């Protein structure tokens, strides 16, 4: 899923400062699962803003909505009938969702209520960790199902570097050395042969480096 973290409330209050009538828009997709942009978070954020503004002597009217997904046009369109009745939309969906709203509702300012994080997994309740950078050229079959691009702080293809100590990355004691994980897994799978091969230079054109990416499925259009 796409993860994120809430922006500090002070930053949000500053963003909504010019407005007196806004929409706070959540999303039922990834951000609901990682508890940063779902229906519940919309309620809490809207209440918080209302309380802060009223305590400061200037009330704000807030419409609370949560779309099925902010990244799909059919759900985004559901906002169209009323969006122009409001001065701004504070979205707590991921960056893709926020931008999609901005693209569809061209005269309404869009404000980001969260900082979008990464493609990750729920390690346990309340803890998420990155697993994929969407580089567009997957090599997981060679690396024991553990991604060197994402899990190694230097994205090395022939790790680990000298900074790996007892399975921990030198960058942070809470980061496991991705290459130690790869090696442990390759051993368990009896695939250490893969380790000993020189890998070709990675093509980054399929990653973000090639410019904004697009997938076109002719068969579906």
């Amino acid at each position, binding site marked *: 899923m796409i993860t994120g973290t809430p922006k500090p409330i002070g930053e949000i209050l500053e963003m909504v400062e010019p407005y007196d009538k806004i929409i706070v828009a959540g999303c039922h997709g990834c951000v609901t699962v990682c508890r940063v942009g779902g229906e519940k978070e919309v309620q809490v954020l809207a209440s918080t803003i209302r309380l802060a503004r009223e305590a400061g002597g200037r009330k704000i009217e807030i419409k609370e909505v949560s779309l099925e997904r902010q990244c799909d046009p059919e759900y985004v369109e559901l906002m169209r009938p009323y969006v122009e009745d409001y001065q701004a939309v504070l979205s707590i969906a991921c960056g893709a969702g926020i931008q999609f709203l901005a693209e569809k509702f061209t005269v309404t300012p869009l404000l980001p209520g969260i900082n979008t994080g990464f493609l990750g997994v729920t390690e346990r309740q309340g803890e998420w960790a990155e697993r994929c950078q969407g580089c567009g050229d997957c090599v997981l079959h060679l690396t024991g199902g553990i991604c060197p691009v994402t899990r190694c*702080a*230097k*994205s*090395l*293809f*022939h*790790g*680990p*570097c*000298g*900074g*790996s*100590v*007892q*399975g921990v990355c*030198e*960058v*942070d004691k809470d980061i496991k*050395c991705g290459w*130690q994980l790869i*090696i442990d897994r390759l051993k368990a799978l009896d695939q*250490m042969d893969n*380790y*000993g091969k*020189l*890998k070709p*230079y*990675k093509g*980054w054109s399929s990653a973000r480096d090639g410019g904004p990416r697009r997938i076109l499925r002719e068969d579906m259009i």
Partner: protein
Amino acid sequence: MKSESNLKRVLDAGHISVTAECGPPRGADPEIVRKKAAFVAGNVDACNVTDNQTAVVRMSSLAGCMLIKELGIDPLIQMVVRDRNRIALQSDLLGASALGVRNLLCLSGDHQKFGDDPQAKNVFDIDSMQLIHMAKTMRDEGVFPSGDKLDGALQFYIGCAVNPFADPYEIRVPRLKLKVEAGADFVQTQCIYNMEKFKTYIEDAKKEGLLDKVKILAGVTPLKSAGMAKFMRRMVAGMDIPDEVVKRIGDEPKEKQAAKGIEMCIEQIQELKEMEGIAGIHVMAIEWEEKLEEIIGGAGLLPRPVIE
């Protein structure tokens, strides 16, 4: 070949080589480099010039190489893949070779988190293993990775670094093998303090037939004090300093610890140079270049051979 690396010639002639390193300054003053280089000149066969080590911004390695070359030292350019993508790496390889740098050390580079610009974007377009391969291809085949021909091939003696003490141990020798297959002519090791573990590493490398394929230059760093030993052990990832080493220097009174550190370093070099598979000694006297002559001479490695 006339323009061949002095380090290569010394090693090819069967001598135990000596290399040292020179960290460029945090500023544009060339005199600082010249002053350090004066301690190095005559005591080594080649001198590494570090490339923004620990991700702290310093004068570029290439500039440092040129400054020490002017003083007659064979420069060894360190190149990290942290800060340059493959375009910049190829370009810098061409430039260094054109300016007469004949030794290259391919490194990953410390993560930028440790430097003075932790907010910098890291590159890691290719890794150090692939940099070795790229330099070798550009040298031996005279082509760029794109396949285009170079107007004048690179002339480098290609090296890499290994840390026999990092985790996990079991891939340390396979990793060296990979580096040799990628094209490394020589390797410089992380500072050695744990001689037992290092001997095991060399034996394992021998079993893989690597001792004939690559020149191993054993790294040493003289300890200035017991405090320095403890600090390095705690702060430097993959630094293995056994308790007995710390105890030996720590048993001396404070004012005699530096002399003890040098004595221990000399002993260690003498042991290393007799070891099978050790082709040279790499002395990393960190900010202690003035002691190089004493250490290298003390180990019986002076004067350095002159090979025509």
